[in-house]
C-alpha cells in the first residue's frame, strides 16, 4: 500500500509550498485517479511517492519500489523494444537468454508480439506506451505511478489502453496512482478519484466510484460523476 501523511514540499525559495499537508492512502491493489488544475502539484505528488523528491515535512510509506510511467514513455531510442525491457531486468539475476524470454513474454502480454526488434521510433505512440508499461512490470514493482501516460494519444488508442491497463491491474494485483487532466479518464479507471487544488497543492475532495469494470466511458454513470467532479474542479480553478 501507499501512505502519505501531511506531506509538505516547496521548491527553490518559493514561499508558497507546492504541496501543503497532503495525506493520501491507497490500499494494496487499489486504483486511485488524481485530477486537478495545472500546477496543483500532481506530478510532484508522484515524484514524492517514487522517492524522486524528498518532502520537507510529513512521511511517505510505500510497500514496494514503485515504477513511474510518464506522458513521454522515456524509452531509450538506441534500444529495441525488447532491449528496453531487458534493461529493466538487469538486477534480477537472470541469464541473458532468460532476460530476453521474459522481455518477450511481457511484450506479448502487452499485445506487442512480433514487435520486439523494433526501435521506439518505429512504434506508434500507443505501442511505445505499452513498452513503457512492460518495462515497469519487468521491474517487478507492485506499485505503478502514472503521470498522464495517455494524454498524447488519440481517443481510440486511449480507450484500448484503458482496457489493457485495467486488465493488467487486476491480473497482477497492482497498486496504481494515475494522474490525469481528463476527468472522464479518471472516472473510467479509478476506484477513487482524488481532486487536488493549487496554491498550495492539497487534496480537497474525493469520490468513490462504485461502477463495475470494465466501464464504458460514455455511460450515464460515468457522465454524471464526471459532471460532478468537473463542477468541483471548475470551482477550484475559477472560484465559481
Amino acid at each position: 500500500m501507499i501512505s502519505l501523511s501531511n506531506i509538505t514540499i516547496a521548491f527553490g525559495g518559493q514561499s508558497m509550498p507546492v504541496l501543503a499537508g497532503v495525506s493520501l492512502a491507497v490500499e494494496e491493489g487499489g486504483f486511485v485517479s488524481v485530477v486537478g488544475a495545472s500546477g496543483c502539484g500532481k506530478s510532484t505528488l508522484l515524484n514524492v511517492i517514487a522517492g524522486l523528491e524528498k518532502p520537507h515535512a510529513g512521511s511517505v510509506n510505500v510497500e514496494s519500489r514503485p515504477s513511474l510511467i510518464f506522458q513521454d514513455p522515456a524509452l531509450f531510442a538506441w534500444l529495441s523494444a525488447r532491449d528496453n525491457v531487458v534493461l529493466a531486468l538487469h538486477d534480477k539475476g537472470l541469464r541473458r537468454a532468460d532476460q530476453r524470454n521474459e522481455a518477450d513474454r511481457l511484450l506479448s502480454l502487452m499485445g506487442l508480439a512480433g514487435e520486439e526488434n523494433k526501435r521506439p521510433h518505429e512504434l506508434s505512440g500507443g505501442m511505445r506506451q505499452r513498452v513503457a508499461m512492460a518495462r515497469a512490470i519487468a521491474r517487478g514493482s507492485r506499485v505503478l505511478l502514472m503521470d498522464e501516460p495517455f494524454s498524447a494519444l488519440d481517443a481510440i488508442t486511449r480507450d484500448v489502453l484503458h482496457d489493457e491497463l485495467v486488465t493488467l491491474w487486476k491480473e497482477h494485483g497492482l497498486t496504481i496512482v494515475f494522474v490525469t487532466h481528463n476527468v472522464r479518464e479518471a472516472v473510467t479507471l479509478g476506484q477513487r478519484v482524488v481532486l487536488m487544488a493549487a496554491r498550495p497543492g492539497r487534496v480537497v475532495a474525493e469520490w468513490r466510484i462504485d461502477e463495475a469494470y470494465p466501464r464504458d466511458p460514455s455511460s450515464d454513470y460515468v457522465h454524471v460523476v464526471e459532471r460532478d467532479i468537473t463542477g468541483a474542479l471548475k470551482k477550484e480553478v475559477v472560484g465559481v
Partner: protein
Amino acid sequence: MSRLRSFAAAAKPFALGMGAVVIVWQAIVWSKVKPTSQIPSPAMVADALGGLWSDGVLLSSVWNSLHRGVLGFLMSILIATPLGLAVAMVRGVRSFVRPVLSALQQLPSVSWVPISIVLFGTTSTTVYAIILLGAVPSIANSLVSGVDLIPPTQWRAASMLGLGGLRSVRRVVLPAAMPGYLTGLEQGWAFAWRSLMAAELIASTGDLGSGLGNILTVGRNSQDMSLMLAGVALVLACGLLVEKAGFSPLRRRVLSSRGLAVV
C-alpha cells in the same frame, strides 16, 4: 549491388565538385595570371604525386602521418571521455574544469608547438602533446554538451530502472549523449589532424621528418610549388578518407538507429 549504387550516388556530387575545381584551376593556369612555377597546372601536380609514389615517399609519408594522427586521436578519446563525463556529471569538477576546457578550445594548438619542442624536442612526444592539447578539450566539451541535452525523463527512467554508477554511464548516459559525442569526435579529429600538420610543418627534423608536413617543407625549401600542392592534396585526401570511411558511416548508423534524419 545496391551498396555499390549508393556509394556511386554519394560520390557523384563530390566528383562533380572536384571536377569543377580542376576546370577552374586549369582555366587560371591557361590565363597565365602567374607563371607555372607559382601556379602549376593540375597535370604538373599529378606528376609530382607520381614522383612521390615512384620514390616510395608517398605511402610512407601518408602512413606516418595517419598513424600519428589516429594514435594521437585515440589517446585523446581515452583521456577526453572520462574527463567529459566527470565534468558533465560531477558538479564540483564541472565548476573548475569546464572553464579551463573552454579556454583551451579557443587556443590554436599551433601555439603549443614551440613550447612542446623546447620541452620534448623534435620527437613524437611533441606531436602527441600537441594533438592532445588540440583534441581533448573539443571532445570533452562536446560530450558535456551531449550529456547536458539528455532529456530529464531519460534520467528519471534510468533512476526508476535502478541503473546507477558505471552501469548507468555505459547503458544510458553515453548512448544518450552519443549524437553530441560523435560531433565532438569529428571536431576532435579535425583538431588532431590540423595540430599534427602544424607540428610536422614546424618541426620537420628528427623523428618528425617523415610525414606529409615534411613534403610541404621540402617543397617550400626547394621552391617547388607542384610538390607543395601535391602535399596539400594528400593532406586533404587523408582528412577526407577518415571522414568518409570512418565518421560518415558511424554518424549515419547512430542517427538512423534513432529515427533521426540523416543528411
